[in-house]
């Protein structure tokens, strides 16, 4: 068990240092997400009330679209020269590879999400009334919910034909519940949690994370072993 945790920690370290080296690509993903926010404001017809009300939705749809780029990228580097096989033969246990990749993806999405918040405030006049802390917690849980199934399906799609098509096709329906919960929770943060629903939505996200992180660690081996 101790050994497994040590391997996870080493994989996370490898992912984070790799992200730092390839930070230009992370910045590119962030720029993409911010650009989607701009597009949403045009799609929303520049109606101030509507934009404020929909800010939470734009935040998460933008983040989800950006996630397909960063998730795909995170496995492109593993499959390009078959580094994934190199890792398996070191040997690193597949569950540790999953945890490392998923945490790496979580960090990218979390950074992008946190960057998008101030832009939401500026563009949509959506001030976080419930405090920045609760909104940050929502972004953390929401991105953790996207990154676990995202990592599974990115691993899968990266080794099939038509991977760029396949990843969103598999991922989008799967993350519907976490998009709903994250949007509702963020909206409660933006517009005030009058109904006291924030904690319920966050609980849904926690449940989603528990299920998908466990399933990922359990099933990843089946996806990556040739």
């Amino acid at each position, binding site marked *: 068990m101790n050994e497994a945790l040590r391997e996870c920690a080493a994989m996370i370290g490898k992912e984070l240092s790799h992200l730092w080296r390839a930070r230009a690509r992370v910045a590119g993903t962030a720029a993409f997400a911010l650009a989607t926010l701009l597009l949403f404001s045009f799609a929303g017809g520049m109606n101030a009330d509507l934009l404020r009300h929909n800010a939470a939705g734009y935040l998460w749809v933008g983040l989800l679209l950006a996630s397909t780029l960063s998730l795909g990228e995170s496995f492109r580097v593993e499959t390009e020269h078959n580094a994934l096989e190199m890792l398996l033969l070191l040997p690193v246990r597949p569950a540790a590879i999953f945890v490392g990749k998923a945490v790496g993806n979580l960090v990218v999405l979390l950074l992008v999400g946190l960057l998008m918040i101030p832009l939401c405030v500026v563009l949509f006049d959506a001030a976080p009334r419930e405090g920045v802390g609760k909104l940050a917690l929502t972004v953390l849980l929401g991105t953790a919910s996207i990154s676990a199934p995202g990592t*599974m399906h990115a691993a*899968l799609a990266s080794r099939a034909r038509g991977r760029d098509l396949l990843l969103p*096709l598999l991922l989008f329906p799967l993350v519907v519940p976490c998009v709903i919960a994250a949007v509702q929770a963020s909206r409660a943060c933006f517009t005030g949690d009058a109904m006291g629903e924030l904690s319920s*939505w966050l609980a849904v996200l926690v449940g989603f994370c528990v*299920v998908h992180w466990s399933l990922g660690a359990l099933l990843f081996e*089946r996806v990556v072993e040739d």
Partner: protein
Amino acid sequence: MRRWEIWVGLLGLGMLVFGSYYGLVLAPREQYMGDVQRIMYVHVPTAWNTLLCFTASFVGAVGWLWTRSWKWDHLIESTIITGLVTGSLLAVQGAIWAKPTWGVWWTWDPRLTSVAVMVLSFLGILALRSFVDDPIKRATWSATAAVLAWVNIPFVYLCVRWMASLHQTQSTPKTVDPAMVFPLRVNAFAVLFIVIFFVATGWRIARELRKRELAE
């Protein structure tokens, strides 16, 4: 014995004709919704059987991951395709019911929306199957994806329900007139038998396809 499913299918078809006639003509008219409600006699059985199909895919997925026996992969393939057909029918029926009842083709009713998400999830898995050439990888990957998609169904349902909790409660035989229960039961088994016919035929087709793929 080799073609037992044809008889099951014909039985289902006969029961569907009988049950639907009973439901459309003999069963009492519903108090508030009127004749529109009669679509329930196909809609509810379709819903039950769609869920059953995708649950069978999940069973097949676990079976394949556990035993690596091809019969489970045949089951995944045939139940996903059958489930997609009944699921699409279900969404269309739901829309037909929604239009006169709520005045719109689509409502964000938890059940209707969950079905739409479920159909999309398994449609993605079918796409995945067509994108992977190696039969073993195809089976393993689609089984993994099917496990994730199936486990997700309660989350989808719960979230949509919480988000839009303004629709009627579930129709089960307990909340309706006994004279409505009878055709509902008949049709539930009718659709079940028809689904069994399609799943069994699909299973056979999948087995032949794999046999050809795995031949020299």
